[in-house]
């Protein structure tokens, strides 16, 4: 198993995999898009899934779906998909089930059905039912993922009330070096080093961290205890560091890579520490201030973190404890690394002492979880989305900005799809599906567009942005579901589901639109 999942374990680790394998998801309606989503969840090993679809397989369904067979035309979609293909073939570790019950009926008679899922995925559900489902899940705080393909356009909406990310895996995070706020062990070690007295070889292998520390203390002495603040001072500081390179008997500078590295690191290493705004906000959240036994692990830990931060005068977070590689001899580097590691351990212990008692009930918080939380303290994220009903109340600023931007924006497809929904509500079919009525559908769809943007006409350029070409194209595709677009969205949506399940990496919290005509895409807050 470890070998089978090797390539993904390198991304989300064994604990991420464990979360995935414990998850139970629900997929409503079998379309090419939803089938692809499910495929991309089964392959990496999601725990279990249930397919909800009472429909029968048509020739059209088989045409764009890799997992349906023409011999099964006329049979139950959910049953065929599960029995004949998915669970048996793709990944024997995953358990699957299906129900042919109608979603509306489930919503009315047995809403508890939906409560057991980590995430619910829906494709091509009619607007009214979708809103009803969304409301139910919103209250229960179960994320809903809406995803479908329409012609060359792919649509993804994640309806999530609150989602907490522990490991956001930022691409370009600064190392947590504490040069400006050194801790006693670092100070002690740095003070034990005398650059002047060193032999040449030693001198050229001192880790840049120590070099910067030394030059920083010297700078502070000359500048009323201040560190270099602006660009100009940092440049001067850099020059001083480079002047520290030893010279040979002819007065020519030697080759000292560590000093050059130190100069290069000045800008990133001397950024003054500030508690990230996102954390400041998080600490003010009632969920963080008033934790109870019902609180999630994340908020219990966040509460502990808040106390940790408030109990030191610089509002420091626990030290991350990892050291980037730097030019150095092995011994000095390892010594330094151990100093950081020990301090991080010390911080974790202190942090743990702030955790409220019920954090330990039945061992709900493991040491691993606490450690991970501390290591990622800088990057914690709480994302909050809007509900579907709020979205439908008015067009969001993000969409409007997109529409009136200079360049053609894919935000226009969002408007198109919303109007297609309206069209469907009124005519119980999608525009352009009947060959003979394409022209009249164009007129009808234009009317819906005018209707939906009527209150925004004051925005300059808005009506021009939604040109007839888009309407034409929307009717041309006649709700066709192209496998290429379905497969694209299947990949994107599946990864978002994995993010929601593992609490790793940051998910989309609004709408994501793919435009296959141009191979472009856009994220919108809605």
């Amino acid at each position, binding site marked *: 198993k470890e070998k089978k999942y090797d390539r993904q374990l390198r991304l989300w680790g064994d604990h991420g995999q464990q979360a995935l394998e414990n998850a139970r998801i629900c997929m409503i309606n079998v379309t090419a898009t939803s089938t692809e989503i499910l495929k991309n969840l089964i392959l990496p090993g999601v725990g279990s899934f249930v397919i909800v679809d009472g429909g029968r397989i048509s020739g059209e369904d088989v045409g764009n779906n890799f997992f349906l067979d023409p011999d099964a035309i006329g049979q139950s979609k959910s049953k065929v998909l599960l029995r004949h293909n998915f669970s048996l073939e793709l990944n024997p570790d995953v358990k699957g089930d299906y129900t042919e019950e109608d979603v509306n009926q489930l919503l009315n008679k047995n809403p508890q059905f939906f409560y057991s899922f980590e995430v619910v995925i829906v494709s091509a559900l009619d607007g009214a039912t979708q809103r009803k489902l969304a409301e139910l899940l919103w209250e229960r705080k179960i994320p809903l993922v809406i995803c479908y393909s329409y012609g060359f356009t792919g649509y993804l909406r994640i309806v999530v009330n609150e989602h907490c990310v522990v490991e956001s895996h930022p691409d370009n995070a600064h190392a947590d070096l504490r040069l400006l706020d050194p801790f006693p062990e670092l100070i002690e070690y740095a003070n034990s080093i005398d650059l002047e007295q060193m032999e*040449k*070889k030693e001198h*050229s*292998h001192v880790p840049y961290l120590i070099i910067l520390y030394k030059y920083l203390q010297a700078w502070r002495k000359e500048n009323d205890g201040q560190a270099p603040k602006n660009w100009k001072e940092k440049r001067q500081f850099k020059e001083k560091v480079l002047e520290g390179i030893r010279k040979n008997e002819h007065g020519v500078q*030697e080759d*000292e*890579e560590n000093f050059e590295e130190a100069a290069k690191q000045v800008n990133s290493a001397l950024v003054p520490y500030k508690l990230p705004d996102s954390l400041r906000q998080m600490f003010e959240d009632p969920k963080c201030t008033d934790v109870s036994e019902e609180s999630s692990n994340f908020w219990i830990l966040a509460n502990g973190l808040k106390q940790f931060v408030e109990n030191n005068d610089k509002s420091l977070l626990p030290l991350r404890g990892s050291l980037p590689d730097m030019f150095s001899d092995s011994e000095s580097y390892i010594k330094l690394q151990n100093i950081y590691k020990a301090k991080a351990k010390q911080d974790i212990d202190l942090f743990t002492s702030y955790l409220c008692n019920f954090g330990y009930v039945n061992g709900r918080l493991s040491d691993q979880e606490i450690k991970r939380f501390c290591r990622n303290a800088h990057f914690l994220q709480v994302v909050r989305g809007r509900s579907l009903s709020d979205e439908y109340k008015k067009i969001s600023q993000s969409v409007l900005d997109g529409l009136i931007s200079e360049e053609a924006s894919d935000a226009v497809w969002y408007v198109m799809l919303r109007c297609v929904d309206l069209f469907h509500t009124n005519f119980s079919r999608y525009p352009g599906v009947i060959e003979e009525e394409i022209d009249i559908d164009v007129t009808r769809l234009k009317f819906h567009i005018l209707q939906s943007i009527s209150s925004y006409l004051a925005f300059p350029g808005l009506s021009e942005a939604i040109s007839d070409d888009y309407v034409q194209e929307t009717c041309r595709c006649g709700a066709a579901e192209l496998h290429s677009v379905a497969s694209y969205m299947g990949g994107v949506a599946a990864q978002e589901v994995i993010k929601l399940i593992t609490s790793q990496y940051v998910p989309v919290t609004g709408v994501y639109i793919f435009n296959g005509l141009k191979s472009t895409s856009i994220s919108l807050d809605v």
Partner: protein
Amino acid sequence: MIKLFSLKQQKKDEVAVGASSAGKSKPTAAQLRLTKDLNELQLPKTCKTEFPDPNNLLKFKLIISPDEGYYVGGVFTFSFTVGLSYPHEAPKVKCETKVYHPNIDLEGNVCLNILREDWKPVLTINSVIYGIQYLFLEPNPEDPLNKEAAEVLSTNRRQFAQNVVRSMRGGYSIADEVCRKMVQHLGTVLLFITGHY
């Protein structure tokens, strides 16, 4: 907008499936680039190249005979192997002569930044050759491969120079070192064997 051809009118001939070697005459990008590099080679007078197979430009030898520095009088052969990924990846270089040098170990591995961490596609065969030549003019004790040699170079330059000379005379350093010790230990035995006892 790109004017696209109409694919529909295009008829493609069916070919027999299977490998054939006829007409495999496509020069690779690596080859085009290497030819250019070689044509522009400006060798210092201490260096020459040898191609064991004139038709295989991807494998050749560099022979350096330093005319100044510690290594005057020595002759050192390096093998170059240029891969198909050239110049995306650096050529592979090994020293075939055993040499007492802080940046070259006894297996012939060469520690030269542009051969590994600092390689860039704009660099050429010429740059590598100059880099290697420089190693003989200015051996660098700071980042050694042969730690012992580096140690000596940074503590006692005269001793280093002597070691270099001895190593070049006697073949290579370790053997030289070992021989010297053996002679000390086995001196009497040797004398006995050669009849001078």
